[in-house]
């Protein structure tokens, strides 16, 4: 067992699960989507991205790309949330919530690809 691999996989899978947790629920219902969860997803995703830095293999490049995509999606979701709640008189409306959740939905997809690649890599290693 390789501790580095454990940490690496841990962060990647945690990013996916948290992301899914935030995404899951009624798309425009603010009660179904916890802001702390979004915060945690962003932090974990950032760490997962940093862990992928400097890997020069083809797979490493793919993993880094998917993580960067997830980050872009999640940070835009956070920015939308911040803009809606602080700079708009109406606050976080149902429509805004739907935007935020759908953005995080895209991140879920990217994270799923990440995990699939991870599983593929480990299954190749076994042979």
């Amino acid at each position: 067992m390789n501790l580095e691999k454990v940490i690496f996989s841990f962060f990647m899978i945690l990013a996916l699960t948290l992301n899914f947790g935030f995404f899951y629920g009624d798309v425009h219902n603010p009660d179904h989507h916890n802001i702390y969860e979004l915060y945690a997803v962003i932090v974990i995703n950032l760490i997962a991205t940093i862990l992928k830095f400097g890997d020069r293999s083809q797979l490493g490049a793919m993993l880094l790309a998917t993580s960067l995509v997830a980050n872009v999606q999640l940070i835009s979701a956070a920015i939308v949330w911040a803009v809606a709640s602080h700079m708009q008189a109406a606050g976080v409306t149902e429509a805004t919530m739907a935007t935020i959740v759908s953005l995080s939905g895209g991140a879920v997809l990217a994270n799923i690809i990440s995990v699939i690649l991870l599983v593929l890599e480990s299954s190749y290693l076994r042979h």
Partner: protein
Amino acid sequence: MSPVTSIILRQMRAPLIVIVTVFSIAILGMVLIPGIDDQGQVWRMDFFHALYFVSFTATTIGFGEIPYPLTDAQRLWALITIFFSVFGWFYAISKIVSLIQTPLFKKAVIHSNFKRSLGQINKKFYLICGYGETGQDLVDRLVKKSVNCVVIDNNHRAIEELEVQDYIFYVPGLEANATTPSQLLYAGLSHELCKGVIAVTNSDVSNLKIAITAKLLYPEKPVICRSEHTDFEENMRSFNTDHTVNPYDTFAHGFAMAMKSSALHLLNEWLTGVPDTSLSKPISFRQGHWILCGYGRLGQRIYSILRQFNHSVTIIDTITELKEEFYQNNPGVDSEFIIGTGTDAATLKQAGIENAVGIVAGSDNDSNNLSAIMTAQILNEDLLVVARQNEMMNKALFQASLADIIMHPSEIVARRIRTLLTNPLLIDFLEECYHQDNEWINITISRLSGSINEVIPHCWTNTLNQKESPAIHEALVMGRKIALKYILKNPVQRQEMICCMPLMMLRNGKRYLLPDEELILQPNDQILFCGISQAEHYISQCMHDIHTLNYVMSLKNSPDSLFGRYLLGSTKRKRRNND
């Protein structure tokens, strides 16, 4: 991904994770700990404000307690935040700074810069191995002729020297061992625009290794090598090295030319010298006694030339073995061999300095050479002095010593290679001159001095092909007869001739010396010219522009544009209708 970014990213993993973790904990704390707003109500910082607060605190900007003054609980958390986040931030910065300073990183940066500049080269270039005196001189001259170069040298200081040189365009330099095949390939040998390899390191062994590598991997690419030992030279020639340049042989050849005729020597000096510098003065050799200080590689060659022209010679050298070898190789010779340095008056007097006509100071020690010259000149003022200069830094000393001929091996090699690369026809021309009689040479030199402005002239070759001279080539292919004299006319004022002289023409492999002005040109002729610096520019105008060519040939210009041709056609038609 370039190795540089890869190294940075890999090294920055730990500091970045520290920063992200510290920030996230600090922000979360700020969000969770309740505060009080200006109305005394319980107020929680949201993520947006918490991120703002932690960001300016961590980077020590410190805007203060925004938007409301903090409660004591919040202040306690802010305190913890400050210590940890500022620490994390500084840790990351110090990591970057220390990373930049590591030799490995510097090396990666230099290599990636080199690779980038090599990728940006879009013209043919020469790979120059060794940036010593010869290399510097060569690169300097090639760049002035707008020929691209790439330099490889294993000496760190040589590459630094290259970086600070003020060339008109960038010359990439790589600090690597050129004798290692992989490094040579990396330096651009495998590049499709690499036109040839020039090995001018100070060691024959290295030059040989470079030549072998280049010839084995890319047999079609020309290789020019410097070699100072005959056995290495033969070795290099054995596997088709295109040119080997031996400074002693080259100098000896020039010396033999000078012995044969001083005009021939002058011709050689003028045509191969550095353009726009002052002309060297003619040297006259008197028949008589010569003193040869130093019987090494140079001395031995000069000795045989002096004997060939029936001069009597006395040799002075410090090495006894050379004396024995000399008498063994030349049995029954009347030349005297004195053991000594030749720097003291006693030895020189013993060698017959008072009655001598010339002295050659040819040892590999500059101080000894200078000392010998100075002592000899005191003893006999009318001496012809030939001095060998080994180090570039002593140039001023040798010039001050009033030596008539200065032999500087690096300079000789650089000059020879430069001519080989930029003007191979000139070497053929000088070779032909060597076989001409004295009268011909004297006439040539007087004609030459008429067409140059008291400075060393420029020499260049024009090839009448599609690529280099499209206008003339097209006219010739269409069947127009163009005499050589037309392209020697000033394209601004056709009554005047340009200060320039055609030296040789090469047609179908045959050489024509000093072609006549009435000669009719043919496509693919190669013509060697020599003249003032503007002359090359004037001639190239004629070669490139059909209107200029028509002007110097006093022909009418036909309009080039569609409208112009239509206009001309319609007037012609009208005239025809009227008739």
